[in-house]
């Protein structure tokens, strides 16, 4: 699902229901939403304080009571009424009773949550609990496997983004030229080669033929478990890097000698349902 779209909808709701807040619903705010991993509306209860042991107290740390949660990873326990330590950028901007939307990234997880401020927005001041709850519900349903921020990073650093279908998968026979780097380890990758029939190129130079060779690790070892695995017939969006890992960056698996690509990070393969989001992020880079 399109996380950013739902966030923006939630923020728009908050903005409409909070008089005087509309001018602050800016592009900058949308960027903060994308960048933050934990976003919540809260009220400052203590300054220069922390909410649980294990967090270093400083003039920049404040304690905030959560009024509503707009965005969080599923693993993180955070709900209305919890207290959060926020390391803020400008302590002078906060005092007891200040209400704000906090855009944050995770910092320390213990008996409570400590976060670092990426930005804040005082829009909810005056109290609009109904709006905040609307935001929580909407955004809570919009969690995605990979955040826009992480996906944006993958898209920015890859060589190709293509839509395609896997037509063949076979074990990669390690050539003599690369054999010296392959010794026995529990982290051995068990490389496979997948032939990818390209349907469209979303990023990268035009291909001479509509086929690419993707090398991927079949190993269940911890080193490779997050790398996408492929099967014949598998379709989707492939975010590809030139192979700098296996030691032999060319292959003749497609019937001719060609560069080999890898697809190793979580999110480097996405289902077709993500195509619109990928296109949108590529367009807005």
């Amino acid at each position, binding site marked *: 699902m399109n996380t950013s779209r739902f966030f923006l909808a939630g923020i728009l709701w908050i903005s409409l229901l909070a008089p005087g807040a509309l001018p602050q619903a800016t592009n900058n705010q949308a960027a903060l939403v994308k960048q933050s*991993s*934990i976003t919540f509306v809260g009220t400052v209860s203590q300054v220069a304080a922390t909410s*649980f*042991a*294990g*967090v*270093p107290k400083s003039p920049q740390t404040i304690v905030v009571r959560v009024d509503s949660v707009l965005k969080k*990873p*599923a*693993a*993180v*326990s*955070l*709900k209305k009424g919890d207290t959060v330590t926020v*390391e803020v950028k400008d302590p002078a901007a906060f005092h007891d009773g200040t209400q704000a939307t906090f855009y944050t*990234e*995770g*910092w*320390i*997880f*213990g*008996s*409570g*949550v400590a976060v*670092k401020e990426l930005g804040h927005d005082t829009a909810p001041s005056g109290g609009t609990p109904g709006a905040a709850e609307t935001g929580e519900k909407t955004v809570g349903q919009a969690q995605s496997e*990979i*955040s826009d*921020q*992480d996906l944006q*990073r993958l898209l920015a650093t890859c060589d190709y983004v293509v839509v395609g279908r896997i037509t063949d998968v076979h074990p990669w026979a390690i050539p003599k030229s690369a054999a*010296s*780097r392959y*010794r*026995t*380890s*529990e*982290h*051995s990758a068990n490389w496979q080669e997948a032939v990818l029939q390209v349907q469209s190129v979303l990023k990268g130079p035009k291909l001479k033929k509509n086929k690419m060779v993707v090398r991927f690790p079949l*190993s*269940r*070892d*911890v*080193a*490779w*478990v*997050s790398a996408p695995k492929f099967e014949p017939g598998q379709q989707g969006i492939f975010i590809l890097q030139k192979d*700098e*890992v296996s030691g032999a960056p060319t292959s003749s698996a497609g019937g001719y000698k060609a560069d080999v690509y*890898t697809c*190793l*990070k*979580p*999110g480097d393969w996405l289902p077709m349902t993500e195509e619109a989001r990928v296109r949108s992020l590529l367009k807005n880079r």
Partner: protein
Amino acid sequence: MRALAGYPTRVLALTVLTLMVGTVFGRGQSPAGKRAAAAAAAAPAHAKVVDLIPASLSGETNQDSEPFLAVQTANPQVMVASAFTPNPISNTGNAPLYVSEDAGNTWVLNAITPVPRMTCDITHAISIGENHPRGDLHAGTLACAASVTLDESESDDVSSSAVMNVQSSRTNVDQPFVRALAFSNADHIYVGLNDLGQSSGRTATVDVSLDGGASYKSYSIESRKTMGQDGPSVRPAIAPDNTVYAAFFGWRKFNGSMATSDVVVVRDDAGATGSHPFQALKDPSDKLPGRLVVKRVSIPWSNAPTLGQERIGSTLSIVVDPNNSSTVYVGWADRGRKGDIYTLHVRRSTDRGVTWSKSDLPHTTISNATNIALAVANNGTAGLLYQQLSGGRWVTHVVQSRDAFATIQDTVLATVPADRPVGQFLPYLGDYDYLLSVGNEFRGVFCANNTPDRANFPQGVTYQRAADFNTRTLTDGSGNPVAISIDPFYFSVAVMP
């Protein structure tokens, strides 16, 4: 000092909480639960077991396997633990460590390793040479996102948010195993690793830093011909008198599923400060450095679920008596007895590794077990941690002995179903766990199925994450059920007097 100042309050609070939890969870238990509770009550109260997952991550379901532990010896309230725990909020954020400042009663997760998202192998040690109140943590971490890269890194304060400083980096190595020793005002660091880039095939290596990690030198400690490489585990052990031992598997043959291996021990008497370190022990059979404790044993190698859902192939531990560096123990696993999948063994030397017990010490030939870890306490008591597949359960033992295991005290820390949860990746529990001694305690870490069932933890257990022991379910902190998974557990066991 902050941790010490707050400690009495936290202990009091934890005691009250524990009593409350015990009272609440004692109600409505099943008959089996009541029997287990009665059994636990009858056992001597000498162990503490704590699930490391913090309350604020109650919704997590990761396979947090392969644990490790470091203790600040100057202030043993401070500890650092690790596991295959991903950054809880981001695929690109730093991989985290667990930090405790109250002797393991509570833990927080702090994302300060130099590795993105999740480490592969990670081990670490806290030394006191540089006098940092909550450091110096020296870590060896493998980053495996694209290729296997070792970072040798340092933190001066494990509670700060500063990412660990990478002091040295290298590729194509396996299983870094870090030990550190305070020496004058510097830390000596010894990192055992399998250097797969060694063209000679003599891959068992120790990286040595004599300046707190500012610079490292690599020493191959294999002096014999190999089948092309040594086994993954290379384990240093250090004594306060500057004696350094290291154990490794000298692989002589390998057919893809079975290694024919020597178990080799090397020694250095001057902290590896000389120009040709680790050559003090020579084997009488060929006069080469490296004493062959056992020769040509068969070690099964399987990078697939083989011992229950766990893989096997390289479990090894060595420890030296901190007050008598002549006494050293080594433990490993091999094919062992017919019908066993994987059998543990422990041998001992009392003459600085020159001669070794001819057979396994009593009570230390252990069937279908792995993750061996040895420690020796200040009073000379030997400790042995291992995990055994028995009756469809993973049973975690810590065994103590004052007489080379002729008589033992065996404490079961956990006994959990081996078929649940289904593994997400390998290793299932870890290629290692860890045990060390601190004062009159053995402290350590192991991984296990996290079902909140008191019958699974005969010594009792404390969960930080939200758990209902009555219904034996985990929740996300808001009452929603959470699937069981593999969690890291810290434990402390009193050393036998």
